[in-house]
């Protein structure tokens, strides 16, 4: 049994870590946060040069032909540095949907542009009235011959302000369809917003926008598979952010003095930090669990048995990760005291990301209910029933 990273993955992690340590300190990140764009094109190009944007894609589409395990390594490092570039929206969601649902021609057309860093994608799935529901869009597609037009409103579209290409879900005669819509097409209007963690998001209105169907047939399974992968990616990112946040907190407890001694001498604070550490270990375990669920079922749709197992395992992982993010983000601020609430100190920035992550693709209550409805992880069994 080997649950550790392999040499290639370890090397990938340390490469990303080195890059971010030199280029992504708090000062540089603050400048990006305050900028119009909200992230760095320069960093994006460096990720492209390092091959980070190519990791999950097949070699025939200019990809590295690796898999989610390598994406998870990158996401964990991104979590430690609170990276602002649209990796999740472009590579995991947009690219993931194209790879999962697109035709060969569409993959050849789109994926190389993602890999090179030229094209940014966004998934327009959520709607104002639907909360986390993705299986019943009100957005409509009118298909005629080769093309289609899309009409409807999408919200919480991660990466919307800078996307070159939207992957839009819409109701069709054959279930939920996915459509490609160029950001510059007529009838597309973006209302940009900034999440509390600094990531760019927004609402998008499609008013008879020209579209091309991505693949064919009902895309519900492909969407589910990609959202599962995105949740596993967020699990890795959350672990990176939680670890950084807790280690920073432990350092602060050793250096901050009150009543003539480091505050970490107080057992009340030691025990809270120890509980947070135990929580972090559980979160690491479930990020691993999520990674194994994805890598073990790569290529399986949600409808298959493997797809169902994968989805159930991701729900379990998200349940634990979300609770951990909640606890560690709150405890990190409390253990710091007032300084943890300032914009000039990093702890609050971690707390913001860790508050957004658990609510990005479903929330704790929804995940709990769905996992329970699926029968949980353990079969009922007793020798006397």
């Amino acid at each position, binding site marked *: 049994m080997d649950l550790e990273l392999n040499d290639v993955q370890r090397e990938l992690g340390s490469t990303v870590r080195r890059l971010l340590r030199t280029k992504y300190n708090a000062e540089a990140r603050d400048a990006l946060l305050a900028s119009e764009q909200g992230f760095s094109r320069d960093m994006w190009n460096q990720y492209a040069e390092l091959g980070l944007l190519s990791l999950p894609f097949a070699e025939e589409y200019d990809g590295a032909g690796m898999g989610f395990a390598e994406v998870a390594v990158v996401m964990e490092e991104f979590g430690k540095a609170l990276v602002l570039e649209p990796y999740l929206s472009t590579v995991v969601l947009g690219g993931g949907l194209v790879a999962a649902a697109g035709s060969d021609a569409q993959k050849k057309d789109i994926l190389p542009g993602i890999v090179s860093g030229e094209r940014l994608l966004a998934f327009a799935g959520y709607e104002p009235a639907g909360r986390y529901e993705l299986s019943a869009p009100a957005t409509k597609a009118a298909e005629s011959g080769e093309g289609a037009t899309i009409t409807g409103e999408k919200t919480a579209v991660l990466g919307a302000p800078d996307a070159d290409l939207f992957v839009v879900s819409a109701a069709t005669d054959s279930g939920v369809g996915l459509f490609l819509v160029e950001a510059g097409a007529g009838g597309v209007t973006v209302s940009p917003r900034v999440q509390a963690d600094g990531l760019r998001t927004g609402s998008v209105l499609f008013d008879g926008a020209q579209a091309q169907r991505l693949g064919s047939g009902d895309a519900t399974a492909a969407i589910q598979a990609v959202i599962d992968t995105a949740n596993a990616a967020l699990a890795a990112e959350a672990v990176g952010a939680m670890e950084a946040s807790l280690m920073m907190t432990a350092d602060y407890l050793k250096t901050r003095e009150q009543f003539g001694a480091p505050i970490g001498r107080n057992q009340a604070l*030691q025990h809270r930090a120890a509980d947070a550490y135990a929580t972090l270990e559980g979160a690491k375990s*479930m990020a691993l669990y999520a990674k194994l669920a994805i890598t073990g079922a790569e290529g399986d749709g949600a409808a298959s048995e493997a797809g169902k197992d994968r989805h159930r395992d991701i729900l*379990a992982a998200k349940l634990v990760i979300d609770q951990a993010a909640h606890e560690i983000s709150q405890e990190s601020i409390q253990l710091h005291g007032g300084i943890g609430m300032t914009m000039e100190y990093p702890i609050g920035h971690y707390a913001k990301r860790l508050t957004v992550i658990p609510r990005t693709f479903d929330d704790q*209550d929804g995940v709990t209910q769905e996992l329970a409805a699926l029968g949980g992880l353990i079969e009922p069994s007793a020798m006397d029933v």
Partner: protein
Amino acid sequence: MDNLLSPEELEFAEKMREFYRTEIPEDIRFRNATGQELSKDDIVTTQQILNKHGYAVPNWPVEWGGQDWTPVQRHIWLEEMQLANVPSPLPFNASMVGPVIATFGSQEIKERFLPKTANIDIWWSQGFSEPNAGSDLASLKTTAVKKGDHYIVNGQKTWTTLGQYGDWIFMLVRTDPDVKKQAGISFLLIDMKSPGVTVRPIELIDGGHEVNEVFFDNVEVPVENLVGEENKGWTYAKFLLGNERTGIARIGQSKVNLARVKAYAATTKTARGTLLDDPLFSARLTKVEAELTALEFTQLRMLSTQVAGSEKPDPRSSVLKLRGSQLQQDITELLVDVLGPQGLDFVDDARLPGGFTDLPPAAVDALRTYFNYRKVSIYGGASEIQRGIISKAILGL
């Protein structure tokens, strides 16, 4: 977990699964599975079958009946045992005194005790805690004064689990009162039939008699019953407590207990269906299941970095103890809540003769176990001790 194992490990797991279910009597496993109190006979019978096949003390050196297993194999051995509802080998013998004697004892003392300890021909009791030495174990006061070729032992031990069955007791005793408290402790073996030893039961809130006080009044103990060197007992005790902490999360046991909660909940009717479908109950259950999976993977992560043969304690085992205790307790509470109003009394038998409806399954053990399991966050280093270890050894506070 199965998909993480190598073909050889899977084969080993299958072998253990088969062994436990065919070789250990069904009635013992049934009693264990349904929460009934195990008799001394049940425990002795099981351990002797295990020992006959080399499965009672795999963690011991091979020459004394141990197995040359990898950490993963040891994990499988224990996990499959728990999943098959097989009572574990008596921990006082198998994971406490045995490894101490095997590691620190003289050849003579090994030969005298290890075979009988593995085969539970001697039932060992633990004499560590005292009324004023709990978490601060090193402050113990029971004395052993050397007089000729004997020690004269005076004092009191407490929380002696199943001491009513004990043949021998392994003790921490103070042999030098004039040095730092840890430096004056020795590890001594005492025959409980010696004159001056008195065992008194302590009644617990679960209604049972599991623990005892043991009194020592001028008990004469031959000097050859000392393990290792005089005044080195604290080192041996730390070694022992480190062994105790591995496997203390009892994850396999918690899986079995949770499966049992779900089976009963599925047959318990509510106004809207079964209790298993109740939104609030199933939400609690589901969270515990997910947390248990997290703990299982924490244990597996520790195992995968553990090198065979390396016994260096991993401070993360405190995480296993801390969270494992919490989950074990949560599961006992879920079981109590399955029973509702019919689980609020202590009964010895769920069958009610004379035309009455039988009480539901688990009526015998749910509430007792709930109260009994308050112990798991106290013994083996209380949760507060574990938090202290984590904050010092891992976070550096």
